[in-house]
């Protein structure tokens, strides 16, 4: 059989038209019919009649296909094996087909990771909607990348950081299974060991902040901080990762205000500049230093007027300045090494911000101003908020966050990155948490009232219709090893999450105020919090959204 090759780049503009389908079927009649049907759907079709041939095609041209449709019975290789290979190597959605519709077979297909199982004779209408599998995958990948990168950079460096379970496992297409086994914490990933998780509670964080301020941000080092904090069980690694995350956040904050004019890589305008700058930062970090140099394309528009006196190291000047100010030398070689971000994670946690940013409804230039304005306002989170109202906000926020995820067309870049990071497979378990979250959703007026800006945000958020799982939140709760300190802290947590959901640093400021971190002048600290929200998507859905537990800054998140 002649293999038609139509290698082309993905056409996201006309989606689903142009969807690149690889049909694997040894039956010549079906091959021809499927090809015709798919072409009628305006998909690009490549056919082959051997499984090995299919694998070769897929390997030759990674990212050359969007979806694979394969018959179960192939002469050279069992369709299920092909399914596994494709899932492992290319991580593409695979649809199985067969004239045999026996339940056992179908189940086997699903177990091996098929995203659908079609019975022959296949009707055109069934093929018309296969694009949904591609779409769904993209959404989940975007989310997963963010989550993974957020947690990974920290967790791999520090032993006691608890990590996403199964993030390295890409056995077949086990996402669906993973999704449903939210209570199954450990998917048997050999590379990620479960360690005790350090939860950065408000209390702990405040100690951290105090220590940092005492030392002076530019002289700060994990050891010094640890000594000052006087928390016996805390290790230097914990502090180091927390610090790293904080600095990461600060860097992002700076970048957020930057114009993205020169960025060329990404499609999304808001994200691209940020992405470039993030990558630059990433590179720097991987060099083992904390210096935050920003790429030339990022012009620091950060308006720090209101806070210059307070913020050490953040200037509105050129980045070169900030580089000097922010850099912290790490005398300890071990630290340096541990802080190095492995090359696998080309997208650091920062990228999650990028993604978030692209979801954010605010323009990039707006953000820093908002941030600082907000800081000027007396935010009294502790008092001004009705406990009850807060829980709802994060949910909405998450909804907002998750919702826009759909609209982002990640494009090839994200997928590639996922591939390079080893096929991380973490899927937020959305649906199960739905009910839990819905219970907690409350009107946002209470919070909104106090802060005009928040009102804007909430309005935007409340327009979101879907109640997609704020699954990220509960997950963290279950992982928390520390019981909630007090309700006030919980309140703060909510806000932080809220802010995070907005996907922008400003929110963090808002939240931090609630911490009563008045001493904490350092803007760098502020961005930390949002990352918590992207903690591993292990969701113990039994845990309801408990505001007090909510604010647990997971060590891993600070990566």
């Amino acid at each position, binding site marked *: 059989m002649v293999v038609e090759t139509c290698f082309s780049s993905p056409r996201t503009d006309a989606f689903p038209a142009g969807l690149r389908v690889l049909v694997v079927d040894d*039956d010549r009649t079906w091959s*021809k019919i499927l090809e*015709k*049907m798919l072409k009628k759907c305006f998909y690009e079709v490549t056919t082959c009649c051997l499984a090995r041939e299919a694998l070769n095609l897929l390997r030759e041209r990674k990212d050359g296909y969007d979806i694979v449709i394969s018959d179960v*019975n192939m002469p050279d290789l069992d369709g299920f094996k092909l399914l596994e290979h494709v899932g492992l190597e290319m991580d593409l959605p695979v649809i199985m087909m067969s004239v045999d519709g026996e339940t056992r077979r179908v189940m086997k297909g699903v177990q091996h990771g098929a995203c659908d199982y079609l019975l022959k*004779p296949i009707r*055109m209408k069934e093929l018309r909607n296969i694009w949904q599998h591609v779409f769904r995958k993209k959404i989940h990948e975007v989310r997963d990348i963010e989550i993974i990168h957020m947690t990974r950079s920290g967790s791999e460096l520090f032993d006691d950081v608890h990590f996403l379970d199964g993030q390295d496992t890409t056995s077949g297409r086990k996402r669906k299974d993973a999704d449903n086994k939210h209570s199954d914490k450990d998917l048997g990933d050999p590379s990620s060991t479960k360690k005790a998780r350090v939860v950065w509670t408000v209390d702990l964080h405040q100690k951290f902040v105090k220590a940092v301020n005492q030392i002076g941000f530019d002289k700060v080092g994990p050891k010094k901080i640890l000594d000052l904090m006087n928390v016996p069980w805390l290790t230097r690694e914990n502090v180091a990762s927390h610090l790293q995350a904080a600095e990461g956040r600060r860097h992002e904050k700076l970048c957020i205000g930057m114009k993205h004019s020169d960025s060329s890589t990404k499609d999304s305008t808001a994200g691209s500049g940020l992405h470039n700058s993030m990558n630059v930062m990433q590179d720097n970090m991987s060099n083992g230093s904390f210096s935050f140099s920003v790429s030339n394309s990022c012009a620091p528009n950060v308006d720090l007027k209101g806070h210059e006196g307070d913020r050490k190291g953040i200037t509105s000047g050129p980045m070169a300045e900030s580089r000097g100010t922010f850099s912290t030398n790490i005398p300890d070689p071990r630290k340096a090494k541990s802080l190095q971000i492995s090359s696998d994670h080309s997208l650091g946690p920062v990228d999650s911000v990028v993604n978030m940013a692209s979801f954010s409804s605010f323009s990039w230039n707006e953000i820093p101003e908002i941030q600082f304005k907000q800081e000027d306002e007396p935010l009294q989170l502790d008092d001004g908020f009705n406990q009850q109202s807060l829980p709802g906000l994060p949910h909405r926020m998450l909804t907002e966050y998750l919702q826009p995820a759909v609209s982002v067309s990640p494009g090839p870049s994200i997928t590639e990155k996922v591939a390079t990071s080893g096929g991380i497979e973490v899927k937020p378990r959305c649906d199960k948490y739905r009910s839990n979250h819905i219970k907690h959703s409350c009107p946002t007026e209470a919070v909104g009232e106090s802060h005009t800006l928040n009102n804007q945000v909430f309005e935007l958020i409340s327009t979101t219709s879907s109640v997609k799982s704020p699954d990220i939140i509960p997950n963290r709760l279950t992982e928390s090893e520390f019981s909630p300190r007090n309700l006030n802290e919980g309140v703060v947590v909510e806000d932080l999450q809220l802010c995070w959901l907005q996907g922008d640093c400003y929110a963090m400021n808002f939240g931090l105020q609630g911490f009563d971190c008045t001493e904490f002048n350092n803007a760098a600290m502020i961005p930390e919090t949002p990352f918590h929200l992207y903690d591993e998507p292990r969701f113990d859905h039994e845990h309801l959204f408990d505001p007090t537990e909510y604010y647990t800054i997971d060590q891993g998140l600070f990566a």
Partner: protein
Amino acid sequence: MEVVQIQRTLMDYTKSLFMEGLLDSQFLQLQQLQDESNPDFVVEVVSLFFDDSEKLLNELTIALDQPSVDFKKVDSYVHQLKGSSSSIGAQRVKNACVAFRNFCQVQNIEGCLTCLQQVKQEYYLVKNKLETLFRLEQQIVTSGGSIPMIEMGF
């Protein structure tokens, strides 16, 4: 014969094939897939079906003729034939294959042989009918007419 008459003959003939269960709605699907870019689509697909099926039937004959019958192999061939026949809507061939597979699973050689006969019979019948159908279509086309689309109630 006038084009209109041939067209009518074709319509009636095709309908009868459906009525007798020789063809099912999948065949209609094929006809609907045919368009200007692929005016011979149905004929091409059906020709492929004929080729593949005959090969499979030969293999089956050989396999069942062995002193020690490899039922897994036989089952595999029947499965393929079932798939092919479903592709063009050769309903009775497909049904015969289903029965055939049952005998394979219980490793009943007699049953298998009988089923093979059945499958062959059904196959040659539908092949014959389809060839007649295509001839009628050809006549219409060469006479300048167009092939009427069948609208079946089912």
